[in-house]
């Protein structure tokens, strides 16, 4: 297997003007560049949605606060949620998948490079459209109107009668457009993984990251599309006089809920599987051992993929379903925790008996493991439907899902950034700043989201722009807000690290972490064609085999 770049003597390159560079980036179909575009796009929206979060937290700092009007607040939480899910989490995870999957399977690009580019630009336009609503939404309150119906857009609040103007439509159309982009990318990832693996890489030899993105893409196909369908129905209701969710005409508000959550629940598994992917690649390398129980990890992933499609109504425990329905969704929601728990055990099993290196990627993975454990357990609490009858729609739920998304997914993402940044850019991210970022963010995260569970238990509902002083929620909310600002600071530290290291970071070679998957066999950054000649593999850790010819993996599995 040879993957060195082909050296050409006396190669001369004309310096490129900035317009040429821009043109190349805008018209690229190279999976690596598209991956970077996705990631940069997501990072920009992370900052915007983060500011929206800070606005929310300032308003809720104490009771009867007046920082923003109720109308503005309602727009803030709607935009914060919508942006974070659709224009931060999805793009950044698709970006990493785009970059890494072809490299990890020994391919030169994705199966459909032009579809890849098209999907990215669809997503990008969706995000711009959503934010254009701040300028163009008009509506009952005058010009400048982003959607304010919550990121679930429940019917009939989104009916023309209750949401006049166009703010809801921006939500609907922006997500419709970016939804097509997501489906396009998912089709691409599926086709790439199923058809373009290098010789010797049968399905049982793919890196876990590839497996997890495979299952994730399959889920996107059948989970994002129900939302698309529901949004088309909503548009028909709002513009063609349809009655899908028109309760005055006999329509059903709960039908929207079912359709939305049939999308919404698998969506969060779509988000977490790539996070699992990162952890499954990073923990073994920094424990210096292979992943514990590879076949079980694959099986658990597939099981999660299927079972997660059957749990959606645990978001609807309070709508008055009968006891059989509530029981069914309780058992499935608890059941989906089993393979997830098994994964946690396997990661610990990977660390067990290893020689752990506490570099920044591993620190973030350890944070992930601890926090995802807690998030899973609060999830079990919420799965118990009577308990949920108290906790649902309260700050306990907000704390739970931020624990998963920030404490789980974002921590795993930070790990991924520190781990693969050298591969993408040829430079190492600064370790000391990385550790500062980690500790600062850890403290801010726990201050905010540990404490946030308590107002939920004390009866604080979500999506309220203010609260009564007599409730006793003031101090807790203040602490939550302080933590939010600490996290913001940590993010700034991170962004500085990204920027400064690009120019001043230590040069990274091909394989700075002494890792074992194919992307570490090419230069950093990889050449446009990835591999000079397509590699052939004989085990799950091709580079381990190369580095340890006396004891290759292929002898054991």
């Amino acid at each position: 297997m040879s993957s060195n770049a082909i050296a050409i003597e006396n190669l001369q390159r004309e310096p490129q003007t900035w317009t040429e560079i821009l043109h190349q980036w805008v018209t690229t179909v190279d999976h690596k560049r598209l991956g970077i575009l996705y990631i940069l796009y997501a990072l920009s929206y992370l900052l915007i949605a983060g500011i929206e979060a800070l606005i929310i937290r300032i308003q809720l700092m104490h009771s009867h606060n007046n920082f923003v009007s109720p109308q503005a607040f309602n727009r803030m939480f709607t935009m914060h949620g919508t942006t974070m899910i659709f224009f931060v989490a999805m793009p950044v995870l698709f970006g990493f998948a785009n970059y890494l999957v072809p490299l990890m399977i020994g391919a030169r690009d994705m199966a459909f490079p032009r579809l890849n580019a098209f999907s990215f630009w669809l997503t990008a336009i969706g995000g711009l459209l959503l934010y254009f609503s701040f300028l163009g939404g008009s509506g009952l309150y005058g010009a400048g109107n982003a959607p304010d119906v919550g990121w679930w857009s429940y019917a009939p609040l989104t009916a023309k009668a209750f949401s006049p103007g166009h703010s809801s439509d921006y939500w609907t159309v922006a997500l419709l457009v970016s939804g097509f982009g997501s489906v396009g990318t998912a089709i691409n990832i599926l086709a790439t993984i199923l058809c373009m693996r290098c010789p010797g890489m049968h399905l049982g030899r793919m890196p876990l990251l590839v497996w997890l993105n495979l299952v994730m893409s399959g889920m996107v196909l059948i989970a994002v599309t129900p939302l698309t369908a529901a949004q088309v129905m909503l548009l028909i209701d709002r513009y063609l006089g349809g009655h899908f969710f028109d309760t005055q005409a006999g329509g059903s508000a709960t039908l929207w809920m079912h359709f939305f959550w049939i999308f919404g629940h698998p969506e969060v598994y779509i988000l977490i599987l790539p996070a699992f992917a990162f952890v499954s690649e990073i923990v073994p390398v920094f424990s210096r051992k292979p992943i514990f129980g590879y076949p079980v990890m694959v099986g658990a992933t597939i099981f999660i993929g299927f079972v997660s499609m059957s749990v959606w109504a645990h978001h609807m425990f309070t709508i008055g379903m009968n006891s059989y329905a509530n029981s069914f969704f309780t058992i499935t929601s608890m059941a989906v925790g089993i393979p997830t728990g098994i994964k946690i055990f396997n990661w610990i099993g990977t660390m067990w008996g290893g020689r752990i290196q506490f570099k920044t990627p591993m620190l973030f993975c350890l944070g992930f493991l601890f926090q995802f454990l807690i998030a899973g357990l609060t999830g079990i609490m919420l799965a118990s439907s009577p308990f949920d009858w108290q906790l649902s729609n309260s700050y306990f739920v907000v704390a739970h899902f931020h624990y998963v998304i920030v404490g789980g997914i974002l921590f795993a993402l930070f790990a991924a950034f520190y781990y693969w940044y050298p591969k993408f850019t040829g430079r190492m991210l600064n370790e000391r700043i990385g550790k500062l970022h980690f500790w600062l963010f850890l403290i801010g995260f726990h201050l905010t989201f540990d404490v946030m569970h308590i107002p939920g238990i004390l009866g604080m509902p979500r999506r309220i722009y203010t609260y009564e002083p007599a409730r006793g929620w003031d101090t807790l909310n203040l602490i939550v807000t302080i933590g939010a600002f600490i996290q913001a600071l940590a993010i700034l530290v991170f962004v500085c690290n990204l920027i400064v290291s690009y120019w001043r970071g230590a040069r990274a070679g091909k394989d700075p972490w002494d890792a074992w998957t194919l992307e570490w066999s090419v230069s950093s950054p990889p050449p446009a064609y990835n591999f000079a000649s397509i590699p052939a593999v004989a085990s799950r850790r091709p580079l381990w085999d190369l580095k340890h010819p006396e004891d290759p993996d292929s002898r054991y599995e």
Partner: protein
Amino acid sequence: MRHGNKPTRRRAKRILALLFCYVTVAGAVTPRSPLSSTNIFAPASTPAKTIFDLSIFVLAVTLVIFVVVSSLLAYSAVKFRGRAADAGREPPQVYGSTQIELAWTVIPVLIVAVLFVATARVIHAIEDAPKPGQTLDVTVIGHQFWWEFRYPKLGIVTANELHIPASDPAHPTPTFLKLLSADTDHSFWVPELAGKTDLIPNRVNQMWLDPPRPGIYAGQCAQYCGTQHAKMLLRVSVDRPADFAAWVIAQQQAAAQDAREIAGKRVFETTACINCHAVSGTAASGRFGPDLTHLMSRATLASGAAENTPASLRLWIQNPDAIKPGSLMPAMKLSDADLDVVTAYLETLR
């Protein structure tokens, strides 16, 4: 001998004692809010209590899981950290273990089975509770952004503050709430009395309460319903049976007729007020807004957004956005004189 040692200490003790007395007395004389907390772990009714018992069990199980797994995590991070002496040597490459995998699959399955059985029993106990003979039936209709309460068998229509009788555990007289909505989704949540149940248009939901102790229980809408979702507050007044009976009788009367407030009544009846509001025994029979027949029997206005005082009432009529911006009550654009008389009239509706 050090100066001021003993006298200083004595003085300090005296100050502390005074401080303590102050705090105690202050605590005793500070008008304590009659409203309960909204703590889900302070149940005051059977549904809330049943949920509380289950939740303690679930918490205990998850706590044990947390302690075990996080200990393993911490232990492995500490015990197996790479030391400088090991640099360059790889640890034994272990790929997995079928027995361990089996063990940590079977145990979670058992835990889930236990949790599920415990949960299913509670679901059934609350949702399928048979309706005993002696119940109070109340229909709750959710509006943007207020609560309508109708007592069909008693002929009462009121708003925002629910009165129910305390239920003696020996002879239970629970209240069954039928939950409807006039516009968008809402959710009835009084944490100390029960879990929340949603009010969904074109759908009938049901829940029940049986609080044994009188008191005023706080809650609020728990499903985002629009701009003023945050101020759709709930007060549930659990009355001793005698008090409840008296309240019922008072509510069943038609509106009080006070001859002094004819001018205000005329303003009320000739302005758009009657399009939305009802005052029984008068021409006003609008149903879009709260029934005002016994407005003065309520402690708050605008579903808890303001205290029920003449000043608040006047401000509410003049400019609702000053109290609850985005509520559906329009500013009535009355002259100052008209405002004064209308307010005075409404003040007579006890």
